[in-house]
């Protein structure tokens, strides 16, 4: 083997070309393995500002790395890879690639807010975790979360009819998230409901499922609402992408 202790090197820094001939010499396979340098070569100086435009991330630049957040963290106690202090540092320096390495655990914050309560600089680390998770989702680094799927289903019904139909929200949510339509807890709810046999309620439910009633004189309200929400999201997105000269903070 050409490289010793290969296991100690991040997989992404190892480069091997299957077919390579150099000066007439066949060096295919592990003979041409190169290890990319591990040093950091630049900061994204605009990244912290972008994260500050997400709700919760407003104070991220205040951090001085005392580590109170990580020390008090409920999730860190279970998983030492979950390190809010470290991600806040990476955010402030704009070391995005390093943050992406942890993209699959940042969302596991349970929002207990112990970090936010203890932070001496009022960074609100819990909010930063939320902001980072939203950034990851918006940039497509992580798949759409279940809560976003639920929100969209819920809002979609409101736009269309001015009201929501619990059963339909639930069924569509389960379907869109590839979950069973008959989870045990739902069956249990059904069982207990039938015990009381709420005939009128069940009839309403059935009717509404079929006829999808709208709120009286809903008219174009849904359209207007949808446009407004879309507009607001665009404004936020543009603020994030603003050129440095326009914001300089």
């Amino acid at each position, binding site marked *: 083997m050409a490289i010793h202790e290969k296991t100690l090197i991040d997989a992404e820094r190892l480069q091997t070309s299957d077919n390579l001939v150099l000066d007439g010499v066949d060096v295919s396979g592990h003979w041409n393995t190169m290890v990319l340098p*591990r*040093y*950091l*070569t*630049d*900061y994204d*100086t605009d990244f*912290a500002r972008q994260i500050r435009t997400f709700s919760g991330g407003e104070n991220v*630049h*205040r951090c*001085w*790395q005392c580590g109170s957040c990580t020390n008090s963290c409920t999730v860190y106690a279970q998983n030492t890879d979950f390190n809010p202090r*470290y991600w806040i*540092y*990476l955010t*402030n*320096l704009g*070391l995005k690639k*390093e943050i992406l390495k942890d993209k699959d655990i940042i969302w596991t914050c349970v929002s207990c807010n112990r970090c936010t309560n203890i932070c001496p*600089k009022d960074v609100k680390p819990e909010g930063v975790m939320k902001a980072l998770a939203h950034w990851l989702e918006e940039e497509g680094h992580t798949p759409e979360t279940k809560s976003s799927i639920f929100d969209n289903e819920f809002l979609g019904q409101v736009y269309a009819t001015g009201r929501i139909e619990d059963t339909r929200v639930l069924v569509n949510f389960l379907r869109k998230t590839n979950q069973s339509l008959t989870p045990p807890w739902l069956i249990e709810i059904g069982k207990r409901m039938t015990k009381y046999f709420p005939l009128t309620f069940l009839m309403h439910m059935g009717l509404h499922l079929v006829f999808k009633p709208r709120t009286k004189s809903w008219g174009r309200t849904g359209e207007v609402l949808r446009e407004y929400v879309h507009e607001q999201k665009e404004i936020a997105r543009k603020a994030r992408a603003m050129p*440095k*000269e326009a914001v*300089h*903070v």
Partner: protein
Amino acid sequence: MQKTVLVVGAGPAGLAAAAGVAASGAQAVLVEKAAKLGGTPILSGYAKLVPSGEWARDAMGRMIKRVEESKNVTIHKETKVTKLAGEAGKFTATLSNGTSVECASVILATGFTHFDSINKPEWGFGTFEDVVTTTQVEQMVAAGKIACPSDGRVPERVAILLCVGSRDRQIGREWCSKICCTVSTNLAMEIKELSPTTDVFIYYMDIRTFGLYEDRFYWKSQEEFKTKFVKARIAEVTRSPDGRLLVKGEDTLVKRPIVIPMDLVVHAVGMDPNEDNPEIARVFGVGLEKHGFIDRAEHYTNTCGTTRRGIYAVGAALAPETIDDSISQGTAAALRAVADLNALVQKSA
């Protein structure tokens, strides 16, 4: 009956000492080796002082005016003390301009010398034009424009390296220069005021903005001016092919080596003992402590005392010191010197 105090050095501490002596009704003879009064803040062209935020020329200007207008102060510029004979209560000082001064006591307010960054060649000063010191940035701020010396462009990124010539056993500087952290955070804000699109990075081992400097400088520069603090001691400054500078080191929090492009690199230079201290020690017969600053007497009952009776020392002559505290010490030493005069009066009565 001798009623004169000799004050050596006309920086913040010396100006305060001379003013203190004069205000008490005694005579002060102020000797300054430079052609101008005001000491380092004036001679090095400082911009706004910490923590008052007042321009150096205004703040020092008031101190200078007070001394110049006092009928109890005699000023000798471009002059050194070449000889001091006698003992406490009856010294005779010979000045380089030929004057002889009879005095009861001496206050040494001889200050410090900025660390010469040439002594840390790996950090690029003297090799690359765009590596400068905090003193040079002070001058840029005072002139109202922040620019890279190589081509005059406004820097997109500035790196301020802390502890240059401080806390470094390799070059025999085992002390903290006390004020560079605060000065650097202040400069970071001033740079941002002159060029809002410039990003300022401060590379630190520790941030020592003591006392009220904490929120007024460190927090403010971070929270309001978005200064970035990077925990890394830089190993080397080099140049990339495109002409920008590269700072190399280890980011100790990410635990990875860094090679980051910068436009301007600023050395936060520390305070060395005054380069003339060996001469001062010889002329005045006072001892130097192990780093080369003037050695302090027991402080509790012999405040501002040196190893020789009747000779006091104040400000950055004793150790790295802030301007404000140097002024306080100058005033304190004036009290000691005047108390000596009174004791002589009582003795002769």
